[in-house]
């Protein structure tokens, strides 16, 4: 991977920071308030990994159809920036996209390009390929993007989907948020290929790897990749190394599980946290501390406002149980 030496426009750097901060702060809110037992849905936190989806979604400038896993808080917010919908859904309110029926694992805002998250590993991958097919056939100019974990590459459907996307010459973006673990099982205990990035090359796609831990690096990579994918009419595979800071599911940590070393994780990842890095970068771009804080405050206010709205939004009434099993004409 070669880094583009040109610096990004400052507005882009700020945009990326905002997006990272939005995801991080939203999850910090969840961590704090989850014990109140009002968000009664499992939480698979993105914390630490946000830069992957933030970088990719920003690169696609909204023209993405995003498919993601249960771990998709960051992807959802990176694509939609919609904390109203996000918190409404987590709090189980009528104002959520799934009116609370989906919860954290099934975030959806198709109109904004976050189609639907899925809780069954790898199931979202072929759906993205089909969406890519529709985009091609209908000439929408949109790009189907699928986010999944390294665990999803254990599954045959990943290989099938890559094959189909390449066979039908679809510019689908396969983005692996490679945090090295499926729950507590390291990749090496599940997959024999020494490198996924290398293994997929047999499937006529462009394969990229990024272990910078840096949102701008991912952004550049994704921009180049999507451009090439459309030009060459073939899928791109982005393997982005990252680290999940919290436990697999839940809002606490998991050092007591003993499968990974706290000190090592802090040294290798948390110390160069993507959000922190980006904040430092803004400073180096002559953005004043007060200007940065102003940005942060605005986001914090937006989150508080969304939470307040969500808390006051109606809970779906029992009559909604049977509604929406089939498509309801508007």
């Amino acid at each position, binding site marked *: 991977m070669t880094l583009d030496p040109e610096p990004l426009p400052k507005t882009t750097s700020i945009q990326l920071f905002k997006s990272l901060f939005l995801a991080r702060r939203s999850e910090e809110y969840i961590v704090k308030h989850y014990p109140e037992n009002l968000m009664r849905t499992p939480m698979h936190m993105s914390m630490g990994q946000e830069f992957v989806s933030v970088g990719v979604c920003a690169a696609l400038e909204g023209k993405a159809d995003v498919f993601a896993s249960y771990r998709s808080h960051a992807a959802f917010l990176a694509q939609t920036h919609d904390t109203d919908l996000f918190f409404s859904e987590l709090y189980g309110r009528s104002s959520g*996209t799934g009116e609370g029926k989906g919860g954290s694992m099934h975030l959806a805002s198709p109109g904004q390009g976050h189609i639907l998250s899925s809780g069954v590993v790898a199931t979202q991958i*072929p759906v993205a390929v089909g*969406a*890519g097919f529709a985009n091609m*056939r209908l000439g929408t100019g949109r790009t189907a993007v699928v986010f999944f974990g390294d665990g999803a590459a254990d599954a045959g459907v990943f290989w099938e989907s890559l094959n189909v996307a390449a066979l039908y010459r679809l510019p689908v973006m396969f983005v692996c948020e490679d945090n090295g673990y499926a729950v507590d099982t390291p990749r090496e205990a599940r997959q024999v290929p020494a490198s996924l990035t290398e293994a997929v090359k047999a499937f006529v796609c462009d394969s990229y790897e990024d272990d910078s831990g840096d949102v701008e690096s991912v952004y550049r990579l994704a921009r180049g990749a999507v451009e090439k994918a459309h030009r060459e009419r073939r899928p791109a595979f982005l393997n982005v190394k990252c680290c999940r800071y919290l436990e697999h599911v839940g809002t606490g940590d998991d050092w007591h599980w003993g499968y990974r070393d706290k000190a090592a994780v802090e040294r290798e990842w948390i110390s160069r946290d993507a959000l922190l890095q980006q904040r430092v970068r803004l400073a180096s771009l002559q953005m004043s501390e007060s200007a940065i804080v102003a940005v942060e405050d605005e986001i914090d206010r937006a989150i508080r406002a969304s939470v307040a709205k969500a808390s006051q939004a109606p809970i779906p009434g029992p009559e909604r149980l049977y509604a929406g099993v*089939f498509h309801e004409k508007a």
Partner: protein
Amino acid sequence: MRKLDYAGAIREAMAQEMERDPRVFVYGIGVPTWSSIFGTTKGLTEQFGPERCFDTPICEDTMTGFGLGAAIRGLRPIHVHIRVDFMILATNQLLNMVSNYIYSTGGKLKVPLVVRAVVGRGWGQGAQHSKSLFSNFTHIPGLKVIAPTTASDVKGMLTAAIRDDNPVICFEHRWLYWAEEEVPEEPYEVPLGVGRILRPGRDVTVVGLSWMNVEARLAADILYKRGVSVEIVDPRTLAPLDEDLIVESVKRTGRCIVADCDWVESGFSAELAARISEKCFGRLKAPVKRIGFAHTPCPTVRELENEFYPNARTIVRGIEEMLGLEAANLDGEDFFSHERRFRGPF
């Protein structure tokens, strides 16, 4: 009116919808081959181009997710499986994704996906090419399930399915492909969720599923000669079910046999029998009887296959027993039998 067979009616429904709506496309393993899924996809590639009628790699799970993705993003896919046994590979997508994509978005998404699955008996199919599994899909909320019996029904119901904004699984018994009928030439819809009385009668109701309606008609003809009047009700759509039609019929006749071409245990015949028993409580002169496959994997050898599969004879015997009639000598009867008509290799 011109006559058309069931396979031709399917082909015509798809071709007309493809003509009408450029978003409709058909795909699946073997779809554009020479044998073209028993002729049901014949010529579609030539007519609409390989982008709208195409073959796929052998990966049913992925190709179902593919259909879902295409459906929610504006196309109207028809995915074809030459055996339901191969659709089993797509169970994950059908049960975990297709069936709840709409609900999880509060009813806002559309999933106009049609999945056609062939069922039925062939030339020593054995355990892996002979399943029906209707109930494994009617059990799942969010899926519509149809199993048309006649050529005119299949054209209209498939048309309705293609136009439906919800996922529909269409089960087609391969022996029906040859059944000819007068079928209107222009496109039309037979609404999903509406059953049909195939033959009115007084003494007993047979609720037949798919091919078993053909067997039921034959049984009814045979019994007619003995003065027994059989009503045949074809639900056509299994989910959502036209319960009223069935219940009204059984209330009138007081007796019911459910004839399925699937295993009985936990089959769709169980659902029918349970509903009818409940809704016709006190009006039944005899318990509802279920007819279906023997509860074994399907054997290959013909002699055991003949024991495995129910047919008109099974229905006749069931009705005789229910009415307390003596078992008639059926030796002279000419059972319409595709075991005889059908030859190998598949």
